Each structure stands twice: as C-alpha cells, then as structure tokens.
C-alpha cells in the first residue's frame, strides 16, 4: 500500500506533468509574433553590432535619400535616411532598445507596484481599501502628458525621468483592475478554506489570489506596452521624451511628420515597427494567458 503510493506520487509524476505542460505550451506559441519579438529583442540587446551605421552619424550629403527600391535609392541606406542623412535602418535597430526597455521598465516597475497595491487594497477591504482607491483616483484624474511635462522640466530630460513619471500612472491602472479582480476571487471558497486552515495572509495572496488574477495582469500588460510606446512618442513630440540624439521609434515618427508627403519613409518604418511590436505582444500575451491557465491547456 505505502509502496504503491510512494511510487505513484513520486516526484516524476508531479514534475513530469509540469514539464510536459510547459513544453506543450511552448510548442503552441504563436510563431510569427514570437519571431518578431525575438528579432526586436536581439536588436535591443546587440543593436550596436548589428546596425550598419551609427544611429547618430550625420551625413548631410545623403539626407532624404529614399529606400533602396526607389530609383534614387541606394544600397548604402536600405531604408533611406532622414533630414540629417542618418540611416533609418540603424536608427530603428538601436531605437528598439529605448522603446522596448522603456516599456519593459515602466511595466515592470509600475505594473509590479500596481499589482501589489491592488492585491492589498482588494483583499483588505474597508478603510485601507477606501484610502488606497481615493489615492488611485487622484492619480488617474491627472492628465498624464501635462504632469509629465512639468515633471520632466523640473528634473531634467532623461530616460530615467520618463520611466519615473510614467510608472505611477501605470501602477494606478494596474491597481484599479487587480483590486476589482481580487474582490471577486477573495469571495471564492478556496480562500475561505485557506483561512480555516490558517494559511498566512501573504501566502493566500501569493498562491490563491495572484494566480487567479494573473490573466488580467498579462492582458493589461500587453495592451499597455503599445500604449506606452505611443505615449513615449507623444512625449518626444512635445520635447520631453527620451533626449534626441538617442533614437526611439516614437521620436522618429515625430521627427518625420514634417516630411510626410516628401519623405514618407522617415515616418513609415518606425510606425511599422511600433505596429509589429504592439500586435506581436498582444498575440503573445493571448498565448501566455492560455498557457498559464490549466483549464485551457491540454496535458
């Protein structure tokens, strides 16, 4: 008797199921979005060795040269150049770092803080919840761009200051939504049973509530990446984004808008990159959500 139970409930069984489901999940990962994201991540990490030119190398002689498939285009600049003759392709490759890492940092910092606050607010309820929610409402009521303008003027324009000013807004959005989900999950019976057992509160939050609100967190995070890239471009447009010589996709779109009719490529390619990144992240997020949900994945 004891022997069978030892064999059958052996570590291999439990871990095999976990490992198999991870592998099975990976096999069903969406191919094109994963590839797009992988390429962008490689650009972000190793851009300076991949890019054919320095992204800030000015070459006035070659300014406004069109992409290679135009008659006047040359193979020197595959995707053309901007008004200062900087290579668009190189700027896109290097720009991936700023655009992606900005979103990543803001989601990591703001989203992380937001999830924690939302869990605490929703689970504790009562006065704690009321106070936290009023605080969140104050943040959500503030116009993002305006506050960012004031903040960046005050502390100076830098990558870090953009992250610092965008994170609280993101945290507030996450906290609001996670709190709502927490309110519904905490009423489920398994939470009551955990209390009966005497499971410590932090463990209830971590093992019972968080995994059951994680779907929403992932969907929100993938949606917010797109939002953040666009927000960064708005800030760049207003002159308070990432400082100019550093290329960022949003900044490039903003730069090109004056020449939209004469040199569309300055705007088009960074725009396509933003589109591809946002779309891929959304598809990737859908897959991640399904993979993390044991009811949706097959064993």
């Amino acid at each position, binding site marked *: *008797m004891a022997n069978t*139970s030892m064999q059958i409930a052996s570590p291999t069984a*439990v871990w095999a199921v976990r490992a198999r489901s991870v592998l099975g999940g990976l096999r069903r990962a969406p191919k094109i979005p994963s590839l797009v994201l992988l390429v962008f991540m490689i650009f972000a990490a190793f851009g300076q060795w991949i890019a054919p030119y320095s992204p800030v190398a000015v070459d006035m002689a070659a300014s406004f040269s069109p992409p290679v498939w135009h008659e006047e285009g040359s193979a020197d600049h595959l995707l053309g150049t901007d008004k200062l003759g900087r290579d668009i392709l190189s700027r896109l490759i290097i720009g991936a770092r700023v655009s992606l890492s900005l979103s990543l940092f803001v989601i990591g910092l703001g989203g992380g803080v937001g999830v924690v606050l939302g869990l605490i607010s929703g689970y504790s309820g009562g006065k704690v919840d009321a106070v936290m929610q009023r605080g969140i409402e104050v943040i959500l009521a503030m116009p993002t761009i305006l506050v960012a303008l004031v903040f960046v003027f005050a502390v100076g324009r830098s990558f870090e200051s953009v992250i610092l000013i965008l994170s609280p807004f993101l945290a507030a959005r996450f906290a609001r939504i996670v709190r709502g989900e927490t309110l519904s999950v905490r009423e489920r019976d398994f939470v*009551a049973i*955990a209390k*009966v057992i*005497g499971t410590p509160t932090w463990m209830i939050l971590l*093992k019972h509530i968080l995994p*059951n609100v994680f779907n929403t967190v992932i969907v929100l995070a993938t949606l917010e990446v797109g939002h953040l890239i666009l927000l960064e471009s708005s800030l760049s447009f207003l002159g308070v984004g990432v400082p100019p010589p550093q290329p960022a996709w949003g900044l490039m779109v903003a730069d090109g808008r004056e020449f939209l009719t004469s040199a569309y490529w300055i705007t088009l390619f960074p725009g396509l990159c933003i589109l591809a990144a946002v779309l891929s992240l959304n598809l990737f997020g859908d897959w991640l959500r399904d993979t993390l949900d044991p009811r949706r994945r097959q064993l």
Partner: protein
Amino acid sequence: MANQLLEVEGLAKHFRGGGNWLSSGGDSIRAVDGVSFSVEEGETFALVGESGCGKTTVAKMILLLEQPTRGTISFQGKDVSSFRGSGLREYKRLVQAVFQDPYSSLNPRMQVMDIIGEPLRVHQGLRGRDLRMRVGELLENVGLNPVTAAFFPHQFSGGQRQRIAIARALALRPRLIVLDEPVSGLDVSIRAQILNLLVDLQRDLGLSYLLISHDLAIVEHMSHRVGVMYVGKMVELATRDEFYGNTLHPYSNALLASVPQPDPDVPMGTTIGGEVASPINPPSGCRFHTRCPIYLETNMCREVEPEWRGNLS
C-alpha cells in the same frame, strides 16, 4: 455529558444593515440570534433549516470566518475567542471544513498535490518526499488514485473534487470537520458514495462532524443528534431517533412533512403557508408563530418563546 468537543452558547451574529458614512445604516439583520448546542466526540450533530435560517453563519463563526456579535464558542472546554498564537494554530489544525461547492473550494490554478499539501506545508512544514507520501496516502483514504496528485481540479468530476476537498480536510488529523451542505452540489447518484465515505472516515478516525444541511434524508442517514433552526433561532434539539420518531416543534413537523415521498400514492403531508419571517424584524415570542398551526388554535407563544422542554440533557 460525555466528552464535549465543541460547545456553542448563546451565539449571535447581527449584520449591520445597508448604509454608509453618509446615511446611518438600516436595522441590523439578525442572522443568528442566540443559538446553543454542543458537538460531542465522535458524533455527528446536524443543523437543519431552510435557506437563510442562519445555519451557514453559525458554521462561519465556528470556523472563525465571522466574528460573533454575542455568545461564546468553546473547544475542548476553552473559549475559542481567547486563542492566540499557538493555541489558535492548534484550533485551526483540529477544526477543518468541507464546503458545498467543490468547484469553488479548489483553487483551479493548483495541482491536487498542492491543494492537499497546503495544510501539511502550513502546519507541519512537510516538504518533498514526505509531503508526497502523505498526499498519496490521503488520496487513497478518500478512494482516489495517488497518481491524480499531478492533476488540476478541472480534470475531475464533482464527486471526485469533493473527495479531494475531504482529503484536504483530513490532512491534519482534525477532531472536528464542519460539513456545510457537503453533497448538495453533487449529482444524486454520487451523493451516497460521498456520504458513506464520510461515515466510514468518522468510524475509522473518530471524527466529529457538524453537518449543515437542508436535506432531511441525509441528516437521517448521517447524524446522531439534530438541531432545527428557524430565522436565527434553534427551535428544536433532539436525538435523531426522537426527531424522526416524535417531533415536538410544529416547524420540525412541517419540515419533515415537506420531504417528498418517492411513492406518488402517499399524499404530501400538511405543508405550512405564509412566508419565512424576516431576520431584520423578527416576530416576537416564538418566531414561527406567524405560520404556526398550533398558534392559530391556541394563540400561545406570541409574547414569550416556548420553554425548552425535553429529555435531552
């Protein structure tokens, strides 16, 4: 009385009526209003009554999920509200629960291993091999294959899920298990299996059950003593044989009469008219008097509650 495990004395729970800091709340809802009973070692005490009579609120107070407004709960002779630290941990080890809905009581994101392992981790710090052995053993105890430890709840039927919930409740070798409608969420065809499992476990492990149910057939099958609740009050307390043989309170009579008979030729018993009284503004005297056939004839019990009579203790 022999070996009282749990004693409930004058327990009451009043929920504050709606209202916020702008408008003063309405009248409070007296969900439970002075209930006393005890559960002895190795027995099943059944709490019956219709929906909303407060029986689940009693269970929640015993499980420390709700704070009583009045009254005391004593466990092994000690006041539960005085438990702190290790005493509280011990109480949470010795008192476990199985709830009605096995779809809501198992976390869909956890493997069975972790669901049943949770109390073992929290209380005994079991890890690795010891934990797996014990979980396998518990699964066997409730009639499931230990290999299912790797599965997730959605891979089980309702009856199997309830078995998992029972295995979790057994994990810490408790003395008392609160069974809140343990089979109401299950198909009729598997109710008997689960009930027999519970009876067998009680016999083998010497458990006490507080069974909360509205199903009198199950209560007759499982319980040793029965308490009947109506709108937050206990109206009758009897041993099972007395209760099913010779009910004293007209509400209990009405409850028993409302059990459907499987034979269509047997006429339905006399049912009672009227609506369940509101716990916000309960009737004076015996709360049942507004619907009571005896009251119609004698006008008793309107001002004062009937005295507890009987031969129980």
